[in-house]
């Protein structure tokens, strides 16, 4: 089955890309504003601003009082949220069809005229909230800082992906109102934004509304920074964290190609073949046969600017060691590159990827996000349908080739956590 989600697109004169996909199952519309600004656009000493901004965008704008953004939408059956990543910040909302125009008005006001509402007191309050968000999501969980550590291990000094979107709290504390205003003017504008509407709306009407609410928005953004050269596969210096963790855990981290490179997709399949499935090599060997790990998994973060990140993870059983598990990981990496994956493994990895993708598209909120991503990252919203065919086209030979280039023992960096007294850095620990 090929996917046939309807996709209509238009670019307004000021550069705003508009994407519309009809779906009349329920009388609602999902709205996604994808802004091409994330942590990689932050300057040294001013990290965390993109994410702080995501918070400030809910604190009112020229015509919308503090708290009114949520309140106005919710009273009509809408909800709103936002997320910040390395490459982009997205604002998502969903509402009954009759409130779509209200939602566009709210988005237009904050995306084009926010600054009158960004005051020192809002800034101070939301900075406190972000500090608590960091403690809740990263500091107060065993292994909670793993992702930050992986980025520091895999990306060199000065690389835009070396720091994560939550940012450095010292930088956040130092951010002035002026820094924050400048950040908005530099990065938020029609030419850096994709507006996607999915649901109970006809494209003609959606385009007309987009023109009405965004057509006269001026673009003041600064030119996008030049692309960073792709990093070659290479292992870095391994790190061991001694912390109050419930079990020893080993991550093998890898650089991967940019998300726009087909080989990134192939690499995600290879990672699944290695550790993401019940039929994966490491699961069969370490979980089922050798019983040296209680569970294993794989993950990848597709990124735009030259280089992505991938990892394998395993929880080591008592009586076994991280070094033993790491040695087995290296052997399986070599086996995959040399002999290629088993047919059953490729079949399973592709079938699971396909179902996960269809599940992601099932709800209109996430479908809108994927359409925005397709338009922004792949330059074509229709990539949402094409991606499905690309997945099905991945072969065992592709997997072996990509594993041989990107997923080798030499190109891995190991991050391990071992149980021990005390936290390894200030502010961490339970």
């Amino acid at each position, binding site marked *: 089955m090929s996917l046939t989600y309807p996709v209509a697109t238009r670019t307004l004169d000021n550069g705003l890309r508009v994407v519309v996909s009809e779906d009349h199952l329920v009388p609602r519309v999902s709205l996604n504003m994808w802004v091409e600004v994330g942590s990689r656009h932050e300057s040294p000493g001013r990290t965390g601003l993109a994410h702080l901004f995501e918070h400030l965008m809910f604190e009112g704008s020229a*015509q919308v009082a503090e708290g009114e953004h949520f309140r106005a939408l919710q009273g009509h*059956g809408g909800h709103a949220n936002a997320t910040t990543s390395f490459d982009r910040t997205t604002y998502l909302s969903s509402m009954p069809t009759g409130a779509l125009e209200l939602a566009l008005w709210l988005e*237009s006001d904050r995306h084009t005229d926010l600054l009158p509402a960004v005051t020192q007191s809002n800034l101070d309050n939301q900075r406190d909230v972000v500090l608590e968000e960091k*403690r809740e999501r990263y500091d107060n969980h065993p292994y909670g800082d793993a992702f930050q550590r992986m980025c520091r291990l895999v990306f060199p000094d000065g690389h835009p992906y070396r720091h994560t979107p939550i940012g450095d709290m010292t930088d956040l504390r130092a951010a002035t109102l002026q820094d924050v205003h400048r950040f908005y003017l530099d990065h938020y504008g029609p030419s850096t934004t994709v507006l996607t509407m999915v649901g109970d709306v006809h494209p003609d009407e959606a385009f007309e509304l987009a023109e009405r609410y965004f057509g006269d928005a001026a673009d003041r953004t600064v030119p996008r920074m030049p692309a960073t050269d792709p990093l070659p596969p290479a292992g870095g210096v391994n790190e061991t964290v001694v912390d109050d963790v419930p079990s020893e855990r080993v991550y093998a981290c890898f650089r991967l190609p940019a998300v726009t490179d087909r080989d990134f997709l192939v690499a995600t399949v290879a990672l699944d073949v290695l550790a993401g499935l019940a039929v994966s090599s490491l699961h069969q060997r370490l979980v089922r046969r050798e019983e040296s790990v209680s569970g294993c998994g794989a993950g990848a973060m597709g990124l735009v600017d030259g280089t992505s990140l991938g990892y394998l993870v395993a929880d080591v059983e008592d009586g076994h060691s991280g070094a033993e598990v790491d040695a087995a990981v290296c052997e399986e990496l070599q086996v995959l590159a040399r002999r290629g994956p088993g047919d059953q493994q490729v079949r*399973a990895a592709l079938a699971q990827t396909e179902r996960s993708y269809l599940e992601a598209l099932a709800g209109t909120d996430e479908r809108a996000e994927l359409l925005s991503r397709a338009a922004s990252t792949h330059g074509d919203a229709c990539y949402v349908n094409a991606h499905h065919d690309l997945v099905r086209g991945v072969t065992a030979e592709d997997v072996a080739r990509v594993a041989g280039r990107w997923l080798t023992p030499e190109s891995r960096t190991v991050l391990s956590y071992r149980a021990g007294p005390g936290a390894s850095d200030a502010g961490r620990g339970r």
Partner: protein
Amino acid sequence: MSRRPCPAVTPPPAWAFPEVADHVLPSGLRVRCVDLPGQHVVSVRVAVPLTLTAEPRDREGVALVMARTLDEGTRAHDAEQMAQRIEGAGIALGAGVGERGLVVELEVPGSSFPEALGLLAECLVDPVFPEPEVARHVRSRLTDIAHERADAGSRAALEFIGSYYDATDRAARPAGGSADTVGAVSATDVRAFHAAHVHPDRAFVVVAGDVNGMPGAPADLVDRALGRWSATQGQRRPGASSGARAPDAGRVVLVDRPGAAQTELYLGRPGPDRRTPHGWGAFQVLAFLLGGSPQARIDAVLREGLGYTYGIRAGFRPRRSGGLCVVSGAVRADATVEAVAALQEVLSFTGDDLTDDEVRHAADFVAKTAPGRYATSDAVADQVVRLGLDGLDVDTVTSTVEQVRTLDRSRVAAAWDEVRAGPAWTLVVVGDATLHAEGLATTGFGEVTVVRG
């Protein structure tokens, strides 16, 4: 750019939960089908209403180990073959147990639906629970338990059930068992539990998704696969836990975590079940206006006003009979006592303090977001199962939304006053006892007991 006036909003049309087509198979098994055009992934659920009180006391957790090993080998296929067939068909298969029973969940692209049903039937009817696989899952559960204890949020929830429920009630102990009881579970225990409890008496199957283009009606396909699953009517014995509250539950339990980066709070007191005379919708509205958004009563003060938290949630957890009102979230470690005091003050309002505006706002949100909550096959299937295990039908969703649409302040006020008039809060705090124990004793939540982290 020019500033435009705020546009008018047209109200949404009336809404009803998607239609459920019921079929009773010759075996007596009920199949409930919901056709959702455009939903390419079909969600299948098998709900088996067993009770956790049926687990032997020294083998608690056997039901969950059984649920997790259903697909680890059958009479016809070993564990590895099953994994190949399940993953190769693009199926996600999972199973869990709770107060109301066992639920097996399956997600599959529509094209593999018939194949998925065959595999599902094999797991339900013919599992053999090989010893090595059961032993492995027992070990994996023990690891999970260690991780749950290490995580502050899960630790708070665990401490809460032990503090709130009466020690003689099954609900006072984790649904998935404790380290000592899980560690004792053997393949023989698992087989015995499966044989005694996993049968179709009063079980039902839910299929939700786009059923277009399938090689037959979904209920017929289910019959073909699961028709051989047999039961003796009336086999199930009642005996669910009543969820009795401990007589000394109105107090503070402080789980000591020296140097914690944040303090985790978990409060609970008696709440309603879905059959409450106030109408379940009144409590959905209360949950939203208390802890459903940054502008809700709690976060308006603790997050937006004081910056103490990233967010504190409130909700009502219905059991088959009775339930809980729960408030939970993490707060700044160095403002723990201040945050608890602020929370105490926020929660001390009476029904009379509610305003027409806030009730109307919350009611509009709850009623008008309903179509969006049930717009995917998994959300629809989950709701049919949740209600079905409570002995309710999906018209409850539609009638609750109708109730909320016209709900007035006095109904919500009466609902809240009933919670307030009931037994006091149990407050679990996971944080640094040296820093907070003394201060917490002054916040009005009762005496403080410190336990080791």
